[in-house]
């Protein structure tokens, strides 16, 4: 009996973000006739979602291990700035530019993981918050705090990923990339040994350690992968923004956290799915897009997004309470 009940509410919780997204669509369709439901606008939403989707996929791993990666925004910006600086110094080979951005960001992630696991810092909040400022500083340092423009500088193949659309209806390449990445993540998290280990380390680090899983190595890999995703996001950013500008990272980290939490991840770790994260990211961009069409400025957008984040964490807390009750019942049986 009890089992059935929790299962039903579990499903409702899982469908939650999808239902909210559907309601959003209905509301915006009615209130914004002829503006919201247009192929061009929908493709625009996808384009706006790409960056958050890519960054959030790495954030998801950190959250599954009951951690957090606060450095993602500036790690991605650092990658973009690096492309800009290398370009200014005459390197225009797209492969070299893309690879160096990804390698540097991956290394940044590896440092995050190493600080956490080898220095025994109490929580990744500490290591990644610290590194966020370090990355920010380095980005400012290498760019001399200047904005670097990418237009007509001979690196269009790099920009192509973030800018180009394909098919007659203008499907963004960047979102195609997201779908590929997410499919890989789905396999990685559900069907690879390392993926299952990430869930287990998050769900119960001590049980994982006593089962012979090297929790520290798993954590290091998680933060390295998060850095890797930031590198890819940095490349996409270059094409999307057409500039390398340290000021543009403002909300990437919080957006990513919000996407994961809305999508079913928990600060307590051990759970979260990649498709849920995509839904969470889509929900955030849809709200932004709709409010934009209402000509609501940044002010209103920030307020609404803030409330959505709080609502999402409230859902997380409620979910936790329900689980605690289920656990109690299981114990009483």
């Amino acid at each position: 009996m009890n089992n059935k009940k929790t299962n039903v509410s579990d499903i409702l919780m899982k469908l939650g973000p999808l239902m909210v997204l559907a309601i959003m669509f209905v509301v915006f369709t009615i209130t914004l006739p002829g503006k919201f439901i247009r192929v061009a606008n929908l493709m625009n939403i996808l384009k706006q979602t790409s960056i958050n989707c890519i960054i959030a996929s790495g954030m998801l791993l950190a959250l599954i291990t009951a951690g957090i990666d606060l450095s993602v925004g500036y790690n991605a910006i650092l990658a973009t700035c690096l492309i800009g600086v290398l370009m200014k110094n005459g390197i225009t080979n797209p492969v070299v530019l893309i690879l160096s951005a990804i390698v540097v960001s991956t290394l940044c992630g590896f440092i995050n993981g190493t600080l956490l696991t080898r220095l025994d810092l109490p929580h990744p909040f500490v290591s990644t918050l610290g590194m966020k400022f370090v990355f920010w500083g380095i980005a400012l340092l290498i760019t001399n705090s200047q904005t670097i423009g990418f237009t007509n500088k001979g690196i269009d193949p790099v920009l192509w990923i973030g800018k180009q659309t394909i098919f007659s209806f203008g499907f963004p390449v960047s979102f195609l990339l997201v779908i590929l990445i997410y499919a890989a993540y789905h396999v990685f998290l559900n069907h690879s040994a390392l993926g299952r280990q990430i869930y287990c380390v998050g769900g119960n680090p001590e049980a994982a350690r006593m089962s012979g899983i090297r929790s520290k190595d798993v954590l290091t890999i998680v933060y390295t992968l998060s850095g890797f995703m930031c590198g890819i996001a940095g490349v996409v950013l270059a094409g999307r923004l057409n500039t390398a500008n340290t000021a543009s990272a403002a909300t990437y980290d919080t957006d990513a956290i919000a996407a994961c939490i809305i999508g079913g991840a928990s600060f307590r770790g051990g759970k979260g799915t990649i498709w849920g994260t995509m839904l969470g990211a889509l929900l955030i961009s849809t709200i932004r897009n709709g409010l934009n069409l209402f000509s609501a400025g940044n002010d209103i957008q920030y307020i609404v997004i803030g409330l959505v984040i709080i609502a999402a964490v409230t859902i997380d807390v409620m979910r936790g309470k329900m689980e605690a009750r289920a656990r109690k019942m299981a114990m009483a049986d």
Partner: protein
Amino acid sequence: MSEYVVELKHVTKRFPGVIAMRDMHIQIRPGEIHGLVGENGAGKSTLIKVLTGVHVPEEGEIYVEGKKVSFSNPVQAREAGIACVYQELNIVPMLPVVDNVFMGRKITNKYGLLDYPRMHREAKEALATLGHPDADTKRECGKLGMGMQQMVEIAKAVSINAKLLIMDEPTSSLGEQEIKQLMKTVRDLKERGIAILFVSHKLEELFELCDRVTVMRDGEHIITEDMANMTNDKLIQAMVGRTLENQFPKEFGVKGECMLKCEHLTSIGVLKDVSFEAYGGEILAFAGLVGAGRTETMRALFGADKLDGGDIYIRGQKVNNRNPSQSIRNGIAFLTEDRKGQGLVLSQSVKTNMILANMKKFMKGPLLKSKQIEENAQGMVDTLRIKTPSTEEVTMQLSGGNQQKVVIGKWINCDADIYIFDEPTRGIDVGAKVEVYNVMNQLVKEGKCLIMVSSELPEVLGMADRVIVMREGRVMAEIERGSKHFNQEDIMRAAWGGALT
């Protein structure tokens, strides 16, 4: 005015599936030191928690100085004058002594702010009456020794004018000198008319200190006697005196080669020169009181905790088990006593938990072989008779016995040679216990080496081929099945520090 400062009558406390305390009664006189003893799981902790308002009993009455009371939370018990110094001290290590003494209480000045000069003075006075006139109340508690931290706890109790002070294993983490000081303090408190309920595993302390003693067993009151009328043997008999029912389907394997040999395992303050050998085809049991160092021995040889010295040999080969992952590769499986905290990932499915300790067996390249995992999990569910709706069920939803079987399945998947089962039947029902024993029989018949840590003597006597008794980090005795010492009384005697002749 009643004769007793605290009195319990017909108190029963139930938990889902078990009765932790049945029709318990105890009377504590003002200004007496009252000993409380019993085996592990005899119900001492439950009694303490009922007295301190942590547990609310279903039946029975509690009287404080003749007045009937009922506690629904610890604050009410404290206000009634019952204080407790737990084994795990409730000290905030970062805060100075004065704040710890005044935790949950305050003295304010006329501006409504804390009156620290007065608080320091009173904390100092309280500590002075406990025999520590030069205590520095500004010092961080975490920087004090264990004995002094305990004094801070006692000062806290004294300063709320406790009438009854419960001390749970107060000497277990103290050095010899500190124990002497503590005993002196306890006697001083008695002189001031404060009653002490002194819970200890050390009989000699009880004889030295206590006026009367109460023995509990299986959640029930057995006897209360003047200490002067008691002897060591009488106490032990009262503690263990139950009959052995035949719930142990013991089968015998063929004793094989020496699989595991530990020499001089040492861990400062925990293990003192622990040496033993374990053979294939036999069950070697580790008996002793809680905190005797049995689990610590297992954790150390499994690489979960660091060793300060000693050698480990597996099949004659010296090994270096620096972490659990290495030990598992060396053929050791370790079923931990805390299955929820260290055994299972509760938020994951039965089948994921089953492969946790040996994912390599189920991998093809970096990917997992889903079909084989499903077949394996289904096979385990069948052979271990795990009651679960499916292998996809999260383990959180299973009952204790079935959770334990999932952990056992996990370790069987490791194809280990040496199986360490730490309290394998704790908190599971009788039917599941028998099934766990059958798994143990099966492993032994396959020639595996099985080490069982158990705090339940009937289980030790029922299943073991050989018993090692530990006490305070040392091996006290080694008893073969069939020897004249292979009985409850002698094992208990060794566990309590007595000599076997």
